[in-house]
């Protein structure tokens, strides 16, 4: 009986701590969630956290494209109620019409093409304070802890989701105040019955770090306008990038 009570107290304390860290349960009812299945189980309360900063690492242009595809899948859910979003970048290569395939209306996205990292961060912080937005995405190379902390604080007030897409970062595992760190790499597609052609986009989703949660490696496919999980059957598939682990930081 004592243990049950203690358990109760512990869960409450955990919730208080995560609330203090800006990890509130999402205020918007998202229905069935993002459909990310086991990935969502990695986060506290088993809910994909919106209204916080997510960090995506893309070492190659191919990874960047995969990350953008995955982000677009998330946007489809975040922008469901007609909200718009801001996409801030330097030397943007994203081709807006492709977002349509992920259920996002490219017309609803406002693109900002800037040159200086300082400007990108300023614009992102300003935008995160604006409650009329569903999401703010910024492409940049590196960000230090103080800068990411500022963004996290801005997002905690307004509950706008922020996404940092770090393309070809110089310091991959630098500490940031982000809630989660992702790495998305493309995976070979599959078409049944041996028909020639290229199948639905498939990714290896590597959740490197989760605040108050545990990361993991997942295989996700975008099919019929939603995320589905798939199993890797063959052992000959070699991930082309060395997978980063949080342990790599200390080693």
């Amino acid at each position: 009986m004592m243990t049950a009570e203690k358990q109760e107290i512990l869960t409450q304390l955990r919730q208080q701590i995560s609330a203090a860290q800006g990890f509130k349960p999402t205020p918007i009812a998202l229905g069935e969630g993002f459909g990310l299945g086991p990935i969502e189980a990695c986060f506290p309360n088993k809910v994909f956290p919106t209204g916080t900063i997510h960090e995506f690492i893309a070492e190659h242009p191919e990874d960047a494209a995969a990350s953008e595809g995955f982000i677009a899948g998330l946007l489809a859910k975040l922008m469901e109620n007609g909200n718009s979003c801001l996409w801030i970048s330097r030397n943007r290569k994203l081709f807006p019409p492709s977002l349509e395939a992920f259920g996002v209306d490219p017309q609803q996205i406002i693109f900002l093409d800037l040159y200086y990292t300082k400007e990108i961060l300023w614009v992102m912080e300003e935008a995160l304070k604006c409650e009329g937005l569903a999401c703010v995405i910024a492409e940049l190379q590196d960000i230090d802890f103080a800068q990411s902390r500022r963004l996290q604080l801005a997002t905690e007030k307004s509950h706008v989701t922020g996404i940092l897409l770090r393309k070809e970062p110089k310091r991959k595992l630098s500490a940031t105040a982000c809630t989660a760190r992702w790495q998305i790499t493309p995976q070979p597609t599959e078409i049944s019955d041996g028909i020639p052609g290229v199948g639905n986009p498939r990714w290896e989703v590597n959740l490197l770090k989760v605040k108050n949660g545990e990361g993991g490696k997942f295989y996700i496919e975008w099919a019929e306008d939603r995320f589905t999980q798939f199993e890797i059957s063959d052992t000959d598939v070699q991930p082309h990038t060395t997978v980063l682990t949080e342990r790599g930081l200390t080693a």
Partner: protein
Amino acid sequence: MSRYLAIYFTNLLTDYLAIKKPELKDKVYVFTMSQSNRIMVTASSREAEKHGIFANTVLADAKALVPDILAFDDKPDFNKKLLVRIAKWAIRYSPIVSLDLPDGIILDSSGCSHLLGGEEKYLETILSKLKESGYNCCGSISDTIGTSWAIARLGRKSPIIQPGQQYNALLNLPPMALRLEQHNIQRLHKLGFDKIGKFIQLPASMLRRRFGQELLLRLGQALGTEEETITPIIVKAPFEERLFCLEPISTKTGIEIAIEKLLDTLCERLAKEGLGIRSAELKGYRLDGRITETKIGTNQPTHQVPHLAKLFELKIDQIEPDLGIELFILTATKTEPVHITQEKLWSGKPGLADQNLAQLLDRLAIKVGPQAIRRYIPQAHYWPERSLRPAVSLEEKTEIKWQKSNPRPMEMLHKPASIQVTAPIPDYPPMNFRYKDELHLVRKADGPERIEREWWLEPGEHRDYYILEDDKGRRYWVFRSGHYHEEHSAWFLHGFFA
């Protein structure tokens, strides 16, 4: 009742030169221009005038009087340029300022003089400022332009003519005070009318018969019985607010307060008429005569003071008050009817129409420039680069749909990158390709999707696009430019799929 201030510059051009070149002060120098094979004096300095050298003297005669006279070239319309500059400076004292060629300016001082503590102080301030900067000038205030003009040039007594006293003021002045044609002045003198008082009482019909309509018109204008208007150099905008500061303002807080005050009054007026600002301009008239200009623009017409103040606030750093700003003028350069929105009830995130978003974009546009902010809408073209175009406004919608039949890459290169390809059979996807020194073995492929070049827009080959997936699962968009050719088929990589 109107009051007009006329300012007369006795030596406009030569004073200007003395300001530019202080060593010329107290020297005998003139401006000259060649007229029908003679070099004529067009303007002379004060010292030169003492020696009897005036405009329209021949330079050779002037040299006979003063052998070491200095002569400078005059340019046509140079005096006009100077007067425009002075008139713009004088806008801080009255919104309506006009040129009075060739040697003066006229200010509509109605309702302005009390700001500086009465007409005497008003006139004194303006004249002493001009004299400080080096211009010799006289001025006069009266009910009519004609009388002010006359008193400024020929008046001997008080420069301020009380309302209704034009008649008495004019009596002792010579006829040239009426701005008449030269031949009329000569005729008046010939007949012994050397003072206006001598003929002002004569019947109008007699004066008209002898001197024409001109004399009566000018007389009427001076007395105030005939209407006379002036053309302001800068026409006052319908939505404009002025703030005259008793003390020159040079601090950031001071400027902020000034902006807020101006916005308060301007926005109240706009709100009454249901209009909102799309673009506005703030001018600061500095103590040293320069003018600072700050412009802002908005995405949606608005008359919300806090938002507009915020937009100006982002630009305050660019205002250089220097010694201080005397006068602020805020002009709404473009206004549009405001969309009336219900507050609160509908503030629940309506996407692009959201007011918060529009305000955010206004702020961002001020900081990073409007050209950096874009939204895309589809265009009816199959050619990938032309399949979309930037939207003109936040509201713009189009009937055209994004084309969905063929997948498009997540990332597209601005310029297709050349790749080396092994493609054994015509119109089959490549077996492998080399991009940036890395060999990619193609495992899966889709295509071709042929996209014809729009020949009416630009010449060139069509493109055959393939989606390729390599041995590591990475997906690419490549194309062959033109038809298959064994040796010289040109292949390019154009994008990356998710």
